[in-house]
Each structure stands twice: as structure tokens, then as C-alpha cells.
């Protein structure tokens, strides 16, 4: 009894200490509480940590990359990574019941992989078939999962509970899926590292604008992220509802029959 009381007290004290430490790290005084962001104090701490890491490592690396490599080559490499991600986007569109989008994405992948020289040239966009980004977080949203609270993850950055989980699946499928095709560990890890720098470089314009215009970068990024994700899920749901699905009463339920669930006539 006594020991349980002590464990409880100790746990509470630990939580309180952690909270004080975390809120102490946050330099910006939090504004009016946002109901979507109950973890604001600790999120701000992780945000500051990520920001420091970005300033020290990722941003300079991305800037150096942009300085050394000419724009057309950077665009080509960015397109190759985006093209490789289309397979997973296609699969997610399929899971969300967006057959037309799925077909378009798959067509883009085939066209750009061949005529576009492995994705370097986005020839599909030039014919009017633009990229339809999709990921597992959107799929979970379409399946009815609420986004949950906003969380800032170390290194990865903005997420919600749902989208963070989706992100882990996205990363696993893309990194491990493609990674399994590359057997040399050094080569594989170099490509992972390079991809991080490449992704950061593609975002330099956006982050520079945010640095220049936001009053509080934390809440600016949070609000923009939540709005964009909501629009993506809403858009995906509207897209899935575009085509009416008909119940075909004339056709025999072939699967059920094969399983022996319905008596044969």
C-alpha cells in the first residue's frame, strides 16, 4: 500500500519535472490554447530541438547541395524520388476507393519510368496528368480514423497521432521496400542520407518564406499543417464519392458461390 503510494507520488513528480523542463525549453510563450494541440508545451520543445538540428545540419547541407548541383539536375533527382513514391500513392488511392486517381497514378508511374527516363523527366505532367499525392495517413482518415492531437515528432516534424502512425508505415514501405532492392548496405545508407538532404533542399523556398513572414513559426506551421491535412482527407473522401457504386442484383455473387455459402441452383 505504502510502496504503491510512493510509486504514484514519484511518477507524478517525474511528470511534473518533465513538464517544467519541457516548458522551460519553449522560448515562445504559448498563445491561446488550441484544442487541436493539447500537447503544445512539449511540442514546442521538440520543435525547438528540430529547429536547432535543422540549422546545424540539414539546412546547411541542403544549401550546399543547392549551391553545387545545378537546378535542372536537382529537379531531375527530385522527380526520380517522387516517381518512386508513386507506387505507394497508387496503392493508397486504391485502398481509399479512388479508382480513377489510382489508375492515373499508375499510368503516370509507367509513363514517367519509361519515357521519362526513370522518372527524371515528368513527361506525364506535360500531357496534363498531374501527380496525385497520397499516403497512409490520408487512407486512415478516409477509413474514419480521427486525426487525434497534433504532435511534433523528433526529426520528422509535424504530425498528428494518426498521420504520425501513417508516416511510419509510409517510411517503412518506401524505405524498406525499395531498400530491399539494393543489397549493398553502404550504397543503401548513402541513398537514404542523400534523400533527406534532397527533400530538405526542395523545401528551402517554403521554409525561407515562413521564416520571413510568420510571427510565431510554431503555430504558423502547425495551423498550416492541420489545414492542409484536413483538406487532403476531405478531398480524398469527396473523390471517392464522385463515382456512384451500384449494387448489381443481376450478377451472381461468384465468391460466395465458390465458397459454398450460397446454394447452387
Amino acid at each position, binding site marked *: 500500500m505504502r510502496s504503491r503510494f510512493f510509486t504514484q507520488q514519484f511518477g507524478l513528480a517525474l511528470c511534473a519535472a518533465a513538464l517544467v523542463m519541457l516548458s522551460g525549453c519553449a522560448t515562445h510563450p504559448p498563445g491561446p490554447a488550441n484544442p487541436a494541440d493539447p500537447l503544445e508545451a512539449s511540442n514546442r520543445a521538440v520543435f525547438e530541438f528540430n529547429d536547432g538540428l535543422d540549422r546545424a545540419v540539414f539546412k546547411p547541407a541542403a544549401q550546399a547541395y543547392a549551391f553545387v548541383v545545378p537546378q535542372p539536375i536537382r529537379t531531375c533527382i527530385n522527380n526520380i524520388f517522387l516517381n518512386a513514391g508513386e507506387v505507394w500513392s497508387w496503392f493508397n488511392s486504391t485502398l481509399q476507393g479512388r479508382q480513377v486517381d489510382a489508375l492515373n497514378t499508375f499510368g503516370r508511374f509507367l509513363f514517367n519510368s519509361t519515357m521519362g527516363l526513370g522518372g527524371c523527366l515528368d513527361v506525364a505532367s506535360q500531357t496534363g496528368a498531374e501527380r496525385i499525392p497520397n499516403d497512409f495517413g490520408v487512407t486512415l482518415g478516409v477509413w474514419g480514423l480521427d486525426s487525434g492531437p497534433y504532435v511534433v515528432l523528433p526529426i520528422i516534424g509535424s504530425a498528428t497521432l494518426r498521420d504520425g502512425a501513417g508516416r511510419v508505415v509510409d517510411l517503412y514501405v518506401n524505405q524498406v521496400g525499395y531498400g530491399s532492392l539494393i543489397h549493398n548496405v553502404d550504397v543503401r545508407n548513402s541513398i537514404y542520407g542523400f534523400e533527406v538532404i534532397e527533400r530538405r533542399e526542395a523545401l528551402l523556398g517554403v521554409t525561407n*518564406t515562413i521564416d520571413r513572414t510568420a*510571427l510565431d513559426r510554431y503555430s504558423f506551421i502547425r495551423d498550416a499543417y492541420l489545414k492542409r491535412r484536413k483538406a487532403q482527407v476531405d478531398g480524398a473522401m469527396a473523390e471517392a464519392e464522385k463515382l456512384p457504386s451500384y449494387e448489381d442484383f443481376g450478377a451472381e455473387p461468384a465468391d460466395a458461390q465458390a465458397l459454398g455459402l450460397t446454394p447452387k441452383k
Partner: protein
Amino acid sequence: MKSRIHLLFKLLLLCLLLGLTHTARAQGKPNPNAAPNEFVQQVADQVLTALKADSGVRAGNAARVNQLVDDLILPNIDFEKTTRLAAGRNWRQATPEQQAALVKAFRGTLARAYSGAFTRVDEATTIKVLPFRGDAEATDVVVKSQVTQRANTQPIGLDYRLEKTPQGWKIYDLNVENIWLIENYRNQFSQQISQSGIDGLIQALNQRAQQ
């Protein structure tokens, strides 16, 4: 026979009208009384032409950027409305002087956002305004466009919200990739106001300008 002449006449009239709109567009001065999508295309074309001709603006020369924003962009924007809506309920608590100072300070923020976007414009940059899908009689409309920054890249979705005023269409809100400018700044403003009041907000906006 009669109907044929009638048809010919109609065709001729159509050609004439098309020719007229074409010359109006070639002159490059936006017509705020045109259809909203045409007006936006004219504004966009005019700004892009100016940008492509001026390497100083693209390099981020602050004076040149301000000049271009003043000459070509602000006349087509109801920026007081943009600021008013971003301030929300706090607008009424501000004195007319504070309101004017806030509009001016926020305009500086807008210019900085533009100057960042301008540095990424090159010869291949295009803005394609999509056909207007809304109600032709509406006075508050959304026009969608696609900006392609460089060759061989994906276009970015950029939407404009316009209001019909006695002087014709005026843009008052922008949407970049599903994020509305006013909506995102509402929270920025209220957060700053709750911390340090309207004067604090004006000061914070102006401070960002000096960084």
C-alpha cells in the same frame, strides 16, 4: 438563306469580340470589370512579364520588390479587407490610427512573402488560370490557378478569392496548396494581440521587416 446570313453575322460579331478581348489582353492592363478568371489572368500575366524583364526584383532587391508590389499588385487587392478579416474581432477595438498602422505593417509582411516567391521566378515560370466554375452572378468568388515555377516540375495550386466592388473585382485572399492566407494569419494575429495588444502586433510585424 436568311438564317444563314444571320449565322454569318453572328460569327462575324464573335470574331470581332474575340479580337477586341485579345487586344485588351495584349495591352496588359488588367480590367477589373472583366470576368473574374480573366481579370486574375491579366494581373498574373502583367506581374510575370514585369518579373521576367527585371532581374533586380528576382534577386530580391527590396526597393524594386516594393515598387512592383505597389504598382502592379496592390491596386488589384483590397488589402484593407485582408487585414480587417485577419484581425477578426480585434479590428473593432483598434482606433482608426491603429487600423491604418496595422494595414501598413501587414503590407510589409505581404511584400516579404512576395519577394521570396519572386526570387524563384525564371523564364519557364507560368501561371495558368483555370476556367471559372462558380456562379456568374456571384459577388464573392474563388478563381483557381496553377503556377509552374520551373521546367519539368509539378504545378502548385494557387487560388484567389475576389470580391466585386463598385470599382470592379478586387482580390482579398490567397490560397496556397489548401492553406488560406487570412485563415492562417488570424491565429497569428490573435496570439500576438492577446500577449501584447494591437500595438504589440503592429510592432511585431514591423520588427520582422527589419530582420
